[in-house]
Structures are given as C-alpha cells and as structure tokens.
C-alpha cells in the first residue's frame, strides 16, 4: 500500500515525463473515464492483494511465480494477510486494495452487499477441516469424541472468522449425529480457552504446545509444522463446505490488470501451487 502511494506522490513534483512510460497524463482517479480506453490510463505496476491468512504460503509462492509469467507483464504482488473479517473491515475503512480474497462466502457476500467489490467474485479452491494436536498430546486425544471431555484446552476463533464459521457448522453436524449426540457441540465449545484472531494463530498456539487442540484447515498442516503436530481427520459427512472466494475491489487502482491475477489463480499454474499447499482444487 505504501509503495503505491509513494509512487503517486513522487510523480507529482517531478512532472509527467518522469512518470509513466506511456507519457499520458497520470490521473488520480482510477475509474475508467468515459470515452477513454481503459488501457490509456497507466495503472500501477503493483497489485495489492488482501487475502485470508490460510493463503499465506500459497500466495507468497504465487508472488514469486506470477511476475515471471508473460500475462503478468511485470506486475508485482503486494500481499497482506489476516482474518477475512478483518480484511473486509479494512476494505470498508478505505484500505487501498485491488483484490480481496475471503476464506468463506459469507464475508465475501458482506463485501459485495457493501458495494466494495466489482464483477462477480469466484470460488477458486475448497478446503476441509482437521483437528490439530501438539505432537506430545498431553491431553491424550485420539478421537473426535475426546474433544468433548472436560478440561481439554481448545483454541478457536470467533464465529464470524471463516474458520470459526466452519468449525461451528461441523460441531452442529456432530451434535446432530447419533455417534456424538445432542449437546456435543456445547461440550466442545465449553473447552474453548481462547478465541484467536485467525486460523494461523490457532495453528501457532497448538504448535507451541499451549493448546491441546484446534479445528484448522487441512491446508494448514504444511511440512513446516508436521514435526510438531498430529492430526485427527474429520469424516466427510461432518465437513462444512469450505471455499475460498476471490474478486476485484470497487476501488482497485489497477482494475484492468487485477483480473489477470485472478485468471492466474484459476489457471493450471495457480491451481498446481494451491494443490501443493493442501487446498482442494476445482479441476
């Protein structure tokens, strides 16, 4: 964000000639001007991407790969990660961003209804939940039912954060399942000792051994953390339909070039990276 703004500020005193290769008048207003072809407006060479913290590793890899692609035409990515809720509120408060990625459709729909997005955001990957435990497993958890035992220290997020949303959905399904029984969700929720800011913080608290368990995306169990953790799988019938959604923001400074990154995320190259990081790809 800072880089984009600084470039704009530096241009003003130096004059037009120093600014763009095109030599056309730099304009602060990025909305397409009626009558002018959008390509005539020089767009910044950076795309600011706000993405859910679960995308940290995958998008960082894309930030290396994407600029090397011909379709990127030298476009660089500036990434900012956080809970999808937090990022949406940043957008509402006028954070300059070209692309918003949310780990659930609920947050994206809130952004769309608030008029923060343009076009129709698209689903580009899916995910599923697993339960993550510290390797030493002090609490001695072996099955999902163990999560309801009193005294277990669980970490979660608030319900609005996508991973929390999916966790509550899974818990509701468990409570409706005769194997776990009505009230199971309440037993599990009573064990929550901390509501972390995002899924990454849950992973960290478990990895450090502070918490006994947490519901996280399967994509979080990267080779970097596997030496420190174990997992309990959640059967398909209890899974919530976790999906990652991406779109161009209404206030994008690069509205013409921003869709190129979204196309890239959907492309075989982007999907390969996502798959490698444990996401369920669409193809």
């Amino acid at each position: 964000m800072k880089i984009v703004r600084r470039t704009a500020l530096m241009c003003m005193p130096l004059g037009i000639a120093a600014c763009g290769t095109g030599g056309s008048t730099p304009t602060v207003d990025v909305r397409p001007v009626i009558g002018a072809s959008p390509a005539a407006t020089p767009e910044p060479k950076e795309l600011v991407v706000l993405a859910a913290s679960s995308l940290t590793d995958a998008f960082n890899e894309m930030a290396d790969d994407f600029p090397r692609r011909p379709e990127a035409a030298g476009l660089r990515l500036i990434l900012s990660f956080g809970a999808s809720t937090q990022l949406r509120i940043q957008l509402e408060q006028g954070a300059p961003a070209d692309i918003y990625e949310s780990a659930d459709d609920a947050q994206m729909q809130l952004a769309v209804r608030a008029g923060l997005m343009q076009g129709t955001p698209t689903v580009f990957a899916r995910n599923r939940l697993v339960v993550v435990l510290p390797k030493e497993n002090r609490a001695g958890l072996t099955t999902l039912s163990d999560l309801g035992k009193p005294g277990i220290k669980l970490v979660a997020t608030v319900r609005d954060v996508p991973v929390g949303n999916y966790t509550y959905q899974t818990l509701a399904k468990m409570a409706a399942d005769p194997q776990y029984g009505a009230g199971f969700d309440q037993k599990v929720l009573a064990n929550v000792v901390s509501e972390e800011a995002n899924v990454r913080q849950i992973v960290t608290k478990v990895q450090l051994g502070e918490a006994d368990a947490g519901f996280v995306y399967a994509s979080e169990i990267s080779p970097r953390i596997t030496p420190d953790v174990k997992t309990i799988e959640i059967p398909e019938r209890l899974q919530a339909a976790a999906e990652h959604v991406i779109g161009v923001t209404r206030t994008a400074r690069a509205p013409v070039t921003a869709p190129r990154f979204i196309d890239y995320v959907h492309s075989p190259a982007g999907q390969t990276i996502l798959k490698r990081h444990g996401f369920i790809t669409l193809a």
Partner: protein
Amino acid sequence: MSAAVFAAMLVVLLLAVPLVALTWRALESGALGRAARSALAVQALQLSLLTSLASLALALICGTPLAYGLARLRFPGRGLVEALIEVPVVLPPAVAGIALLMAFGRRGLVGAPLADWGISLAFTPWAVVLAQCFVAVPFYVRAARTGFAGVDRDLEGAARVDGASALAVFWHVTAPLAFPSLLAGSVLCWARALGEFGATIMFAGSFRGRTQTMPLAIYAALETDLGVSLALSMLLVIISVATLVLVRVVVQRWEPQAVTNDTRS
C-alpha cells in the same frame, strides 16, 4: 522561524488529530449505548480493572523493596538489575509475549516443570497479570528508585536517632517524602498494565471474561462491530486522561505533613 512553528504544530496535530478523530467517530457511530450494554465491553472492563490492579499491587509489594534497595544499597549485580528493569520499557510487546511463552509456556523453561505439576498458566487471568507485570512493574520501580534516592538521608538519620524503627522511618519519613514519585510510578505502571496488548494476546490468549482485557476486546470488536471497538477505545482514552489529570492535581497539592508531625513531635 515560521518553519519551526510549523514543525512544532505538526507534532501537536499528530498527537491531537487521532484522538479527536477517534472521539468524533465513536460519537457518530452511535455505539456508545450499545457498547455499554454489551457483555464483551462490560466483561473486558471488569477483567482489565481486576488484572491491572492486581499487577499494581504486585508492583507495590515486590517493587518497593527492590526500588529502595537499588536507591540505597550497594550489592553485587546491582548494575545488572538496573539494566534489567530498563529492558521491558524498551522491549517491543511482541518480544515480551514470545519471551514469556518460552519461559512460562507449557514447553517453557519454567512452564514445563509447572505443567508436570498440573499447573498451567496460559489462557488464565494469571497469565494476563504475569504479562502485565513483566511490562509494567519496571515503570514503578524506576520512578520509586528515583524518588527514594531523592530523600534526604539526614532526615531518616534524625528519625533513627529519635528512636524510630527502620520500618517506622520508611513508613513515616521516606515514603511520604518520595510520595510524588511513588504515585507517578504507580500510575504509569497501572496505565501500562491497563493498556498491555501484545504480550497478553500472545501469552494469555483472548477469551471473554477470562483473558480478554480492554485492548484485546477492542481488537476483537474490530472484527465484528467497529462501533463497539470505537466506544471502548474512547473509554480507554477517557480513563487515561482522567488519570493523568488526577495525578497532576494530587502531586501539586501534596505536602509531606506526616514528616513534620512525626519527626518533630
């Protein structure tokens, strides 16, 4: 000259504009009433007051002898202790959080043996108090040490000659004379504990009524209800300013009468 005035004005504006903006947006959001009724805000305020006062109590009980010792005694390692109480003042809170985890976390240096005994600090109000003490107690100790060092030792000597015990001298002579420093240190310590965020969220986690203090509640509300977040922020600003004003008034009016009465009668 005008450049200097402009530069000075920039600083004043930098400090004033965010506070004005915060207050304005908080009032405009109409969330003050909603915040006052929200369980999030009420529980956070209760927890913040409880934990910050507990931290202050610990600072007074344990920090006072330390400050006195640093001001009056020569002992081996004194320089090291003096350096040590400066560290948390300049340490980034995130570093404090990680350091506390490495020490008192379940795999920590002290935390691991404690965990074997079945004692776990993380995610409890005790963890909050520990984090607050780590960052805030040095503020009290530094101020108190300066206060004690400034007390005329002849007055203390005279009281001893008159037969007062060491504790009586401290209570009736040293402490009243050092009172403005002790008060200023206490307030700084309390305010720092009240505002503690980084170390708390990393070490104690965030849970309503248990570890979610005001700053953590502000952060949590930012994700769900910006208005409540603004209202809580404004409340913290009011508490901070009110405390500063109160201290100024008390220190200005303070006359160490106890000294005149007790040593001359």
